């Protein structure tokens, strides 16, 4: 069984390779079908693993030795346990659904082959990332998905701003990649291994506080950047420039969750540093709050969803920080379902409105596209965590409630709750603006089966997947937490009256939020909406400030180094100085070469004098 693990990332990677090598001969129709087939095949393998999971909770496949120098060994080694099983399932299956959806959605687009190449490569990279059993291979997946994100965001490259957005996404995440890499160096320098399991064992066995502190901070920055957490969230809203399916897959369901996944994987590292977890929790809660506030004021349908993604990822970090990684993973799963759904649906909406992203220009779509409306509503409910019927309620409110138990829990709880209120508000503001109200007719758009099936599947999941894990004390299935208990440890859960109070408050806040959302939509129609609040619409101006200062510093620095240091100092200064010195020396000597015998004699006289001086010194 374990020997097949490589098939899981292998299929999509093979698809990418076939596409690159023979795509031209195969033709676009063949290529896109083949591309969609690959993640499906991976999903089949994963299904088999699920079936065997009870008997084989952990599978390891060492494919080949990547590098081995002295004490350093890095294998191409894959490992499946419960956590990564969840992740690969999301990556492969959501990947498949989005491939499927794209068949119609992007038909006729320029660069379709390129699209499927990167999409396949992405799925492969994501699978490698989640299955990697050492940090270096994980880093390989990490970078591969970053590349695909770049390429797909810049998919419509003919507009400069799309290309720019892709680069921005890559650059900002690379800040994290860099610190992550340095963190890897540090861990390697200290523990001489990059195998995750061995590393974690050694960390708990022989902790070195200073190294662990530095390493955990560095790795954490990597995770934060990948998961678009404050203040490295800057890239995610801009990366909405890519096709909506890309946003669905990469910027909602999979890649952005890699940071969360990494922090769950390396939890013992963070736990070994006192206070680090709490910092993670605070950053998560703050990001959830911050991004939700930004989401309130956006008018671009995809930007609303982008900020909501940032916010939801904040919840996941909060969960990791308060020692409830299982809940974080649960929310990750739920979020993957509803956010992929929302993005795909949003893509359809945008197509209907002829590539206009502005929600103020939309409205009343519910009659024109009933299926789209219902599925979108399912997603929105899950996002807003509508009590009882949506999956979001079971995953997100569980995190909010659990945060109460953490040290300084009130602060975290308050931030998370406020974020939940705003989430419900902007989610339903979006829904009301797009689907309710006075109809504004867009282009006729027929959803084919390739689009309907993914929407339906994900809509069902957005509602039903939460029932895996009912709140503590409720009747119903409690499957999720016990299943992960062995791997991730016990999860703190409020109990008794406290639980009841917290759950009630959470539900109430959501309902209030929905009402606020309704109001916000109305105000927006009347032209006095939240979008007029510049502070929120511009996301607290963080991005503007960063763009104002950072690129000029880098480009200016480069210009300074080229003109100031290389040209002025090295070329003109040092080399030029030497050249000038030689020239001037030459000029002095040429003075003697004026052709006059008397000048020549003078030089000889000087030489004679010099020699006589030597005589004086020599005796």
């Amino acid at each position: 069984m374990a020997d097949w693990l490589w098939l899981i990332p292998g299929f999509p990677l093979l698809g990418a390779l076939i596409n690159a090598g023979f795509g031209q001969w195969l033709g676009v129709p063949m290529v896109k079908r083949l591309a969609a087939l690959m993640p499906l095949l991976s999903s089949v393998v994963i299904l088999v693993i699920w079936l065997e999971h009870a008997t084989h909770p952990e599978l390891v496949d060492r494919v080949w030795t990547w590098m081995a120098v002295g004490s350093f060994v890095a294998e191409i080694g894959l490992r499946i346990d419960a956590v990564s099983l969840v992740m690969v399932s999301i990556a492969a299956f959501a990947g498949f659904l989005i491939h499927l959806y794209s068949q119609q959605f992007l038909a006729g687009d320029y660069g379709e082959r390129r699209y499927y190449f990167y999409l396949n490569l992405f799925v492969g990279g994501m699978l490698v990332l989640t299955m990697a059993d050492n940090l270096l291979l994980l880093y390989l997946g990490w970078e591969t998905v970053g590349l695909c994100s770049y390429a797909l965001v810049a998919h419509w490259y003919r507009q400069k701003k799309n290309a720019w957005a892709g680069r921005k996404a890559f650059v900002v995440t690379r800040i994290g990649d860099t610190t992550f890499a340095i963190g890897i160096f540090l861990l390697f320098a200290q523990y001489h291994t990059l195998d995750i399991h061995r590393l974690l064992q050694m960390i708990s066995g022989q902790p070195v506080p200073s190294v662990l502190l530095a390493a955990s901070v560095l790795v954490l920055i990597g995770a934060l950047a990948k998961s678009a957490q404050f203040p490295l969230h800057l890239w995610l809203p801009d990366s909405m420039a890519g096709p909506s399916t890309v946003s669905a897959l990469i910027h909602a369901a999979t890649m952005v969750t890699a940071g969360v996944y990494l922090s769950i994987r390396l939890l013992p590292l963070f736990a070994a540093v006192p206070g680090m977890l709490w910092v993670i929790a605070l950053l998560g809660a703050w990001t959830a709050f911050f991004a939700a506030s930004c989401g309130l004021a956006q008018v671009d349908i995809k930007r609303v969803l982008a900020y909501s993604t940032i916010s939801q990822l904040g919840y996941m970090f909060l969960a990791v920080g308060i020692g409830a990684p299982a809940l974080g993973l649960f929310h990750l799963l739920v979020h993957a379902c509803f956010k992929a759904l929302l993005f795909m649906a949003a893509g359809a909406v945008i197509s209907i409105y002829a590539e206009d992203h502005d929600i103020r220009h939309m409205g009343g779509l519910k009659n024109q596209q009933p299926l789209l409306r219902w599925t979108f509503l399912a997603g929105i409910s899950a996002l807003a965590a509508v009590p009882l019927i949506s999956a979001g309620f079971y995953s997100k409110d569980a995190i909010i409630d659990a945060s109460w138990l953490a040290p300084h829990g009130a602060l975290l709880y308050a931030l998370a709750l406020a974020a939940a209120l705003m989430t419900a508000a902007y989610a339903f503001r979006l829904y009301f603006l797009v689907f309710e109200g006075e109809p504004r007719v867009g282009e006729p758009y027929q959803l084919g089966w390739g689009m309907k099936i993914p929407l339906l599947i994900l809509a069902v999941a957005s509602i039903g997947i939460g029932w895996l894990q009912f709140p503590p004390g409720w009747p119903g299935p409690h499957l999720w937490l016990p299943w992960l208990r062995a791997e991730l440890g016990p999860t703190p859960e409020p109990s008794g009256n406290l639980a009841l109070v917290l759950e009630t408050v959470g539900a109430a806040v959501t309902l209030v939020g929905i009402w606020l959302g309704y109001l916000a939509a109305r105000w927006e129609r009347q032209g006095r909406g939240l979008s007029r609040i510049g502070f929120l619409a511009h996301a607290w101006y963080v991005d503007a400030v960063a763009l104002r200062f950072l690129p000029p510093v880098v480009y200016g620095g480069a210009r300074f180094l080229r003109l100031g240091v290389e040209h002025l100092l090295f070329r003109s200064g040092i080399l030029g100085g030497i050249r000038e010195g030689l020239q001037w020396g030459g000029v002095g000597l040429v003075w003697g070469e004026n052709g006059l015998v008397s000048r020549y004699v003078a030089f000889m006289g000087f030489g004679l004098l010099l020699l006589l001086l030597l005589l004086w010194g020599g005796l």
Partner: protein
Amino acid sequence: MAIEASLEPLILVGAATIIAFFFDLSRHLARWAPGFGALTAILTAAAVFHSRLTLGAGFYWDSSASVLGAYLGLATAAVLVFTAGHPLARRLPGALTGLSLTVLLGALCLVSSQTLLGLFVGLELQVLPFFALLAWPGSRRVALEAATKYALLAGLASALFGLGVATLFLGNGSLALIPPAGSLLTGFASHLGLLLLYAALAFELAVAPFHTWVADIYEGAPAPIVLLLGAVAKVGILGAWIDLASVSESWTTPLWVLAAISMVAGNLLALRSQRIRRLMGYSAVAHAGYFLAALGAGPLGIVAATVYALAYGLMHLASFLPLAVLPEDSHGIPWKVLRQRQPVLAGLLALALLSLAGMPPSIGFFAKLGVLVVAIHAGLWPLAVLLALMSALSFAYYLPAIWRADSSERSPVLHHASSWSYLGALGIVVLLLGWIGLPALLTVL
């Protein structure tokens, strides 16, 4: 009367010199004069080889003198063979040959003499012919200027040499290089005398700051004469300097001071020169510096200096031979034409320039290597580093000389003789593979 073996080569050359002048009596005979001279020169080389390590009558063919003497003979032969085909030899070829042989005679005296008087006579013997040769009939007007400048300054240098000899005699009471008292350097007078000799030799060798004349002469004089000047006369001076330095090993300061100045000045001046002949003149200044650097390094330096003298002579031959093919007033090297008409000489010139720059594996590199070795051995670090840097700098003018196309549009008319290609091919072989023989030479020395 038995003739001292050590005098055999000198007598041979002397006799041939006198005979050579008579060739001009007949127009038919005159054509054969350079050939006669070349043959004599080769025989002289053989005679030097035969007389090696003989001592007598104030001459001593020690190993370095033998090596240089043999070289001088062969070099003179090469020059004469070359000149035979050159338009310059159309006027008075017998006299030209005779004067060339006189230069050879002087050079042989210089390398082998064990007395100051011998050195003095040798110097005069090789200086005086140039008064006439430099302004040989048929050469340009500027050649006259070059000859006059040379005559005036060489006269001054001779006077200094004379002063030096007299002062040394005053100090030591002997005209022998190795006086009965044991050492050349006994007091103030002998030091002063030695310095005066150095000054005179420095002039002849164009060591900075006595170098000012050299570029004018290289530029203005007829190329075959410059060929003779560099390849024979200068090597003779180098030999004399080796003789002097080997008897005054206790006092090397002036040598390496002059060496440093000369390396720097020569390279800086050459760097500024656009015209190839001047450039060669200045580069000769730099090479004199490298040579003195070897001499300045003490006893081991004598060997390196001998090798350097030999290599320098060969490189000078190899570079001026092709240059002499060009019209006298060439500013740059018309590579295109040269490559088409005289491919062998073009190759030789490029190789010679690289060799002068010290590009391995040419003999120029190995000669410099020897200098570096002895300088480091003597602990003269600054000199070694300076030499390294200056050698590198010399690439900055030698290479542009190779790859710079002649700026003038017209295509020059080259001189031509069938024998030159063979000479050129021989030169290429010697420059490229000569170093294989050098270590063997070292063991001889």
